[in-house]
């Protein structure tokens, strides 16, 4: 048995080497010494190609984040109740939600052996915030005092290099002063953007070097074996870092990310046991995946929401709340989730997603399907007889928009025209240019797991100018409640205010929530105990080889 197994592995490796060479890459020795035992064969994880070099402050998409999450240990992680718990941080404390003190655990070292200090965090955050560096995650630091100085906006020159709100107290203590109180700041700290950067990452020109982006030195569980050449390499190889002070996997040491360009290919590999973890199951496979993978298939709430947006600012026809209520009541969310999305979405019943603390099941009373009531309300309010529903044609939204259109036609007795736009930005431009006045498809993926993130960036008055409030909804009472929530001294108290703000949205329906996303993933028979955290990243330390 032992011989057969070894031979298979060698043959497999040789094939992989061939495939990689055929792609023009030089990565050939992927775990070539694996013939000996089980634990040095890598656990293989599916990813799509990262968009940028592997720099945490420039990674706001899921694929690069997945790799970086293995290489870095965040300040806070999230427990089963979705509450932040300290990981690389010893404690995160505040008195007034404005000045936050972050104490680091001692014992964390960079993969090159040097100790991690508070200065490494300040360096990374200042680097990310500075406008000249054009880091995509810069907006995460917008609440820190002094952000305006280093990131004054397009066309203006920064007046400082570092944010005055960041203060390194000693080697293990960082003091962060926010521009205004924000009770949910601790929740933000688990994100990729808040990882530290070692001194060696910054080159003589003051920028993160190319070499660092290809082989980032982290302070987390895994260390990259060799540089990753984006566009050429088909795999990213990492091994457990010996000096990592946290929990390590019990019976394996090698991790391999396999870069796929097609979700179908990855799913086929998973079924053929050529892949161990796949978190991008293709929608077409969802229906069969449950049967094919059995208890190795998982389906969990994901923190994103899909809406029908209402152009309140642009079209007086939708000003009457009864019209919006009627539209909401006329949408059969449950059947859409089941039929159009094959169960990969759940019907929405709140403005806050179930993956996040603060969600209340069934909170949105107008999110139930009630065609009779919808028709009555719509006729009474004299809603428009012709409406358009815009959607971006590049994102697979056509089918559910058509389904919503059919619901509205049948239940409200009106003409509904689905209107495709090339890109989502096209809808916004058309609304701004007054060429388009219809409803529009809208979605929201959170920046950090706090209820507040579903409210103020999308519906706050301040977000009309600088955020994502595309409908132009504005409500003083709502803004007040958000402010009270931000200023609360503990997160739980803040949540109460956020929920009251949520109640206002449910009553006024500035957007119409349609579905919550769900994330689906599956794993092979070779691994067990695979879990996704709140950020859809895998907790590798818990994974065991079967």
């Amino acid at each position, binding site marked *: 048995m032992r011989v057969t197994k070894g031979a298979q592995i060698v043959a497999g490796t040789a094939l992989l080497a061939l495939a990689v060479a055929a792609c023009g890459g030089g990565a050939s020795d992927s775990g070539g010494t694996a013939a000996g035992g089980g634990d040095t064969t890598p656990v293989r994880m599916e990813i799509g190609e990262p968009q940028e070099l592997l720099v945490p402050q420039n990674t706001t998409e899921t694929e690069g984040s997945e790799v970086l999450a293995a290489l870095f240990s965040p300040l806070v992680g999230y427990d089963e109740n979705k509450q932040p718990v300290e990981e690389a941080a010893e404690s995160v404390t505040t008195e007034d939600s404005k000045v936050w003190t972050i104490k680091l655990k001692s014992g964390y070292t960079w993969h090159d052996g040097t100790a991690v200090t508070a200065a490494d965090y300040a360096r990374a955050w200042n680097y990310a915030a500075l406008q000249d560096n054009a880091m995509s995650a810069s907006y995460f630091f917008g609440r820190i005092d002094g952000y305006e100085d280093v990131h004054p906006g397009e066309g203006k020159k920064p007046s400082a290099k570092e944010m005055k709100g960041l203060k390194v107290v000693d080697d293990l203590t960082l003091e962060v002063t926010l521009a205004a109180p924000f009770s949910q700041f601790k929740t933000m700290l688990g994100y990729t953007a808040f990882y530290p950067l070692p001194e060696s990452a910054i080159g003589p020109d003051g920028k993160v070097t190319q070499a660092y982006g290809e082989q980032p030195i982290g302070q987390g569980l895994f260390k990259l074996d060799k540089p990753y050449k984006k566009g050429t390499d088909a795999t990213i190889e990492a091994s457990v870092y010996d000096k990592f002070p946290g929990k390590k996997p019990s019976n394996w040491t090698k991790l391999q990310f396999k870069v796929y360009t097609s979700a179908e290919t990855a799913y086929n590999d998973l079924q053929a046991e050529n892949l161990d973890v796949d978190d991008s199951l293709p929608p077409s496979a969802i229906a069969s995946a449950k049967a094919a993978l059995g208890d190795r298939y998982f389906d969990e709430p994901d923190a994103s929401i899909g809406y029908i947006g209402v152009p309140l600012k642009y079209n007086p026809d939708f000003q009457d709340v009864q019209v919006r209520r009627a539209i909401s009541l006329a949408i*059969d969310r449950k059947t859409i989730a089941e039929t*159009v999305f094959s169960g990969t979405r759940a019907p929405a019943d709140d403005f806050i997603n179930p993956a996040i603390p603060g969600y209340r099941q069934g909170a949105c009373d107008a999110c139930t399907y009630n065609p009779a009531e919808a028709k009555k309300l719509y006729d009474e309010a004299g809603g428009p007889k012709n409406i358009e529903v815009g959607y971006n044609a590049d994102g697979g939204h*056509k089918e559910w928009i058509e389904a919503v259109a*059919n*619901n509205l036609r049948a239940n409200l007795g009106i003409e509904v025209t689905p*209107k*495709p736009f090339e890109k989502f930005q096209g809808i916004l431009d058309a609304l701004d240019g007054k060429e388009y006045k219809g409803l529009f498809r809208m979605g929201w993926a959170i920046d950090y797991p706090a209820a507040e993130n579903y409210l103020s960036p999308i519906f706050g008055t301040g977000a009309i100018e600088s955020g994502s409030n595309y409908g132009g909804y504005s409500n003083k009472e709502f803004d007040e409640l958000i402010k009270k929530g931000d200023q609360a001294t503990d997160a739980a108290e803040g949540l109460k205010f956020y929920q009251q703000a949520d109640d206002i949205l449910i009553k006024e329906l500035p957007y119409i929530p349609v579905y919550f996303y769900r994330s689906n993933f599956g794993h092979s028979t070779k691994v067990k105990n695979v879990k996704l955290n709140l950020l859809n990243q895998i907790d590798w330390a818990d994974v065991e080889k079967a």
Partner: protein
Amino acid sequence: MSNPTPPVGPGLPDTQTLVTEPTRAPEREGKKAKTGKPASLWTDAWYDLRRRPMFILSVIIIFVLLVMSFWPSLFTSIDPFNARSCDLSTARQGPSPGHLFGRDNLGCDLYARTIYGARNSIIIGVFTTIVTTLIGSLLGIIAGYKGGAVDAVSSRFTEIFFAIPAILGALLIAATFRGRANSILLVIVALGVLGWPMTYRIMRAAVITAKSQDFVVAARALGAGAGRIMFRHLLPNSLAPVIVVATINLGGFIAAEAALSFLGVGVLSPDISWGLMIADARNRFLEAPLPLVFPAAFLCVTVLAFIMMGDAVRDALDPKLR
């Protein structure tokens, strides 16, 4: 059908032999002789066509399609434009009594949608053909008759349009103006603007051949003006090859419409078209093949019918091929 050949391909190797054939009715033994008059090219062709099974079959198919597009309610009692006829919870169900083809991805009756889809395909095919034939023939007849500088300029101008790949050019036009005009009209314009150069060339060649014939010289000698010569003498005698090309192109335009709709720039929902139905069904083809198979089959048969008819007409009008 996602990649139809451009409706105005450089094919048709026999157009040359076609245009060189003057309008002389070949003397024929048999039935025709009884009338005492020599048969014209047209009566002769008709006599020939009636005996071709391929022609008869295609005419029957086209007749059914025409009825389908004018009175779809003869074929189905379900109105696919009424959203109440759709029931999302029955999406992708297979054929059942009352729903002959089953249901599509949104739970609408597939048979009714396929029947109603014929109208836009036929409208677009017919009108695009009319537009291209009018533009091409008019320019062709003028260029062929006038010759010289007029011919040189218009031929170079036509070559510009010839150089643009028809489906790409149409895609560009349709995508640019999408949403600003009626989507069906837009498809006709997009295909029409780029589809006429082939007709132009054939008409021009036919006119050049015809204008040196004795009857044209005679007409001119009798003092006929340019307009009269062009439209009373040259046009009827150069029409045959143009009609052949138009019939074959019609099928091509229907396929091109489906391609544009498939790419998302042709006919737009809530209008129904086969290309659109194919595009909508594509993502779930493995799960539910029928919503793609039925409109695709109708599309194939329609395009085939027009091309078959075009072939039959060409054979009949071109005795040399017999």
